[in-house]
């Protein structure tokens, strides 16, 4: 797994390093890519502060950091999307300035973005022909099919060149993006959070492909915040925090605990000592702190089917019960019906079959505004896109749910003074850092936007809380506050449906877990008994209850 095998570069070969590689040994050759003293400022923040970074042939260099650590900024600089305020880039020892991705591509840099940038209505081969220097003006996709198949075989990808991109899964689209970079003969591949939307099997196959790239003498920059993956695939690790390089080590010299500490800094966080190197073999999780207290059934979902906008059945035969005072975690790889489950429970979508009851009362056909009055809180997945109105004030966003009712409305009129008073109280109670009730929400940080949402959703003493990825992208303090508030609501007797991709979060908070795969429940278990290999298997649709 380390660079111990013979490495044959595409442009001339290099000597295989004998024995175990060390920093010094790697340092004797000219790096493929070197960044020196990269600094990039944005209004109010220094996103990159004097970053040094090197990448050698045949190595996987992990760039590790939390959200907001500066990984994305650095990536955009390496790909020519941003220009650094200070610092210099070198490619194979030569100083370069990248003023556009086109230049970066010409210099052999390939980016595999987190969300694919493919033309959805075109086929794989048409997408790959796009932007290729050798593409002919007429019939651009001709003759490319064979080339794609050969390359895909070499990297162990199963890709149909004639398939339409819109029909591909997230993992398949990523493979097309990788092929795109490889067809342009990229020597340097930047993978941005590549496993975010993959199943375990897809992740394993990605790792095999990365091994192949390494063996081919390419350099891979692996951007992630997942420690397990770093320990599994990286040769070297650079850890970023608040725009600075805080550590730079060989993987053998690192431990997951050490990396986590570097990544989050001195903040005390409960570290879960259960990280192993190989994916697919996650050890058991800790039992959750709280005991299960069975309460009265609150949310009863019975045999629910959902058909999405394109007529595909995204949920089938879903049945479960959520009790008062219980947190029910929903695990699963993104796109397996979680979104539809949330929509159907919160009244954004009607099920095509089945019944939903809240506190014994049927709510299947009830519309959204009445559900709000009926005390369902919804912490949405995309907090800036759906959870708030960025162009409106904190005060107005805080009444987004209750503006129809007293004291915020009297008949058709709004009571803006009551809204302001309410906002002042919420700002104090939730420590929202905002200049005042009139401040535009779009100017707040992600954590503070989430606080606005929490303040609004939890203010009406909801009986059911539907929380979707509630801590995604938040810093540790905001994430912890979110967890505390959810636990507090559970203690008050609310039932919580927690949908998350963060298994640690699910195991920490949930009393029970459901696993969704391809729109069906593939597992239902007590969170105390949950272990990661079993969960992983269930998430991949491997086994039933």
């Amino acid at each position: 797994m380390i660079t111990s095998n013979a490495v044959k570069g595409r442009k001339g070969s290099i000597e295989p390093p004998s024995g175990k590689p060390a920093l010094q040994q790697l340092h004797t050759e000219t790096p493929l890519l070197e960044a020196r003293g990269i600094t990039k400022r944005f209004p109010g923040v220094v996103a990159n502060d004097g970053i040094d970074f090197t990448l050698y042939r045949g190595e996987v260099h992990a760039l590790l950091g939390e959200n907001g650590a500066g990984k994305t900024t650095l990536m955009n600089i390496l790909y020519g999307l941003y220009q650094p305020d200070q610092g210099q880039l070198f490619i194979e020892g030569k100083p370069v300035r990248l003023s556009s991705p086109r230049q970066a591509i010409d210099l052999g840099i390939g980016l595999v973005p987190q969300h694919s940038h493919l033309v959805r209505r075109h086929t794989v081969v048409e997408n790959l022909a796009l932007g290729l220097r050798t593409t002919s003006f007429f019939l651009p996709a001709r003759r490319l099919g064979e080339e794609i198949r050969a390359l895909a075989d070499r990297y162990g990808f199963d890709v149909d060149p004639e398939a339409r991109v819109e029909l591909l899964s997230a993992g398949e689209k990523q493979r097309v993006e990788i092929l795109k970079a490889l067809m342009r003969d990229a020597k340097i591949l930047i993978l941005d959070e590549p496993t975010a939307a993959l199943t375990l099997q897809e992740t394993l196959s990605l790792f095999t492909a990365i091994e192949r790239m390494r063996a081919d003498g390419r350099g891979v920059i692996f951007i992630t915040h997942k420690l397990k993956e770093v320990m599994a695939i990286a040769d070297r690790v650079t850890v970023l925090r608040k725009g600075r390089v805080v550590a730079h080590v060989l993987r053998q010299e690192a431990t997951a605990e050490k990396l986590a500490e570097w990544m989050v800094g001195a903040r005390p966080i409960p570290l879960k000592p259960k990280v192993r190197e190989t994916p697919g073999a996650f050890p058991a999780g800790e039992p959750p702190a709280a005991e299960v207290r069975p309460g009265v059934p609150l949310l009863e979902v019975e045999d629910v089917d959902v058909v999405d906008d394109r007529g595909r059945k995204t949920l089938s035969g879903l049945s479960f019960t959520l009790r008062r005072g219980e947190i029910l975690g929903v695990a699963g790889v993104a796109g397996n019906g979680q979104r539809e489950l949330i929509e159907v429970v919160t009244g954004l979508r009607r099920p095509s079959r089945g019944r939903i009851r809240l506190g014994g009362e049927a709510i299947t056909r009830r519309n959204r505004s009445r559900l709000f009055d009926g005390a369902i809180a919804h912490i949405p997945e995309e907090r800036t896109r759906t959870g708030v109105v960025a162009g409106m004030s904190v005060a107005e966003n805080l009444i987004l749910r209750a503006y129809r009712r007293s004291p915020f409305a009297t008949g058709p009129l709004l009571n803006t003074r009551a809204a302001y008073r309410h906002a002042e109280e919420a700002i104090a109670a939730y420590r929202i850092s905002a200049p005042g009730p009139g401040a535009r929400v779009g100017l707040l940080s992600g954590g503070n936007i989430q606080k606005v949402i929490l303040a609004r959703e939890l203010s009406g003493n909801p009986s059911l809380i539907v929380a979707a990825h509630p801590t995604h992208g938040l810093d540790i303090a905001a994430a912890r506050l979110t967890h505390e508030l959810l636990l507090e609501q559970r203690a008050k007797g609310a039932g919580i449906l927690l949908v998350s991709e963060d298994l640690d979060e699910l195991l920490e908070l949930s009393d029970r877990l459901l696993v969704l795969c391809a729109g069906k429940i593939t597992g239902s278990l007590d969170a105390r008994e949950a272990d990661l290999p079993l969960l992983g298997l269930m998430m991949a649709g491997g086994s039933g209850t």
Partner: protein
Amino acid sequence: MRASFGPSFAEIVSPPRTRALWVTLASVALGLVASGVVFAVYGVAPIAAYSVLLRETLGDARGQAEVVRKSLPLILIAVGLAFAFRARFFNIGAEGQLLAGAAAASGVALFSDIPAPYTVWAMFLAGFAAGALWAFLPALLKVKLGVNEVITTLMLNFVAVYGIEWLINGPWKGRTVMGFAYSDPFPAWARLPVIPGTRIHWPTLVLGLVAAVALHFVLARTRLGFEVRVLGHNPEAAAYAGIDALRVTLAAALIAGGLAGLAGVGEVGGTHFRLRSPSQISPGFGYTAILAAQLARGQPLAAALAALFLGLIFAAGDVARALLRMPPQVPEMISGLLLLAVVSAEIFIRYQLRFPTVPKGGD
């Protein structure tokens, strides 16, 4: 050291209100300079032309009254459009809604038996209903089927134009007009009163100003206004908040269409006193008002002010035609240039142009 080669845009996180004002004013000034070039090319000294235009419009009471008269339809339409734009209903069909209102009012004036003192009221009601009807279908199609309202409202303009052409050449063609294509004149009780000494049909003015103040209040202080703003800013958040997009879009569209219909009533009942060719009823008021709503950035009160400014351009166009012997196309070119300047100004409000610093060292 690294710098990009050309100038670049830097986003201003929270642009101050004053910036919007001076950037807008500066862009209008640039537009006027560009229009000056048009004057010069046409063979008229720009400074002299502007001074004649200014003197004959704002220089005396008669000129000022003409500016107001030209603004009357623009105020009503612009105020409604500003409101609809806030709900993200991009109504390009005010021209057709105006014509629909004009036709409905003409029908009432010419053919109804409503007692004389109520005729004018009935004309306004019918005009509002017809304009609202013209906007109803696009709003319904937008929310129910996702059909782009820019296209549907625009297409309905042509339906209104040819509908009126048919009326004045066919069933409504006047018996007393000797082969001309327009209706009989309205009876005296179906004509709007004017402010003595001017041609300002004041009921239309009052309606316009009331609409501006009322919609300003609706946006700022009512549940409907709140819903309009949430929907306009972020339709996904509106759905999340349980706001009924159909109801809110319909409300915004019907109000905007109805107000444009009222403008049509004002034109036939206060200026022409008959239904005549669409190009004579409206020299593009419905399109020009889009400019006013854009200039006002969706604020109804500001839209009324911007409409006055555009009324000035229309009045100046009349002066240019009469005193400077210019064809009517020239003032239309000017309003086109101004629209271009104002729309391009949008980006300079939110972004600052930065020029690259000279790179030191490097390669």
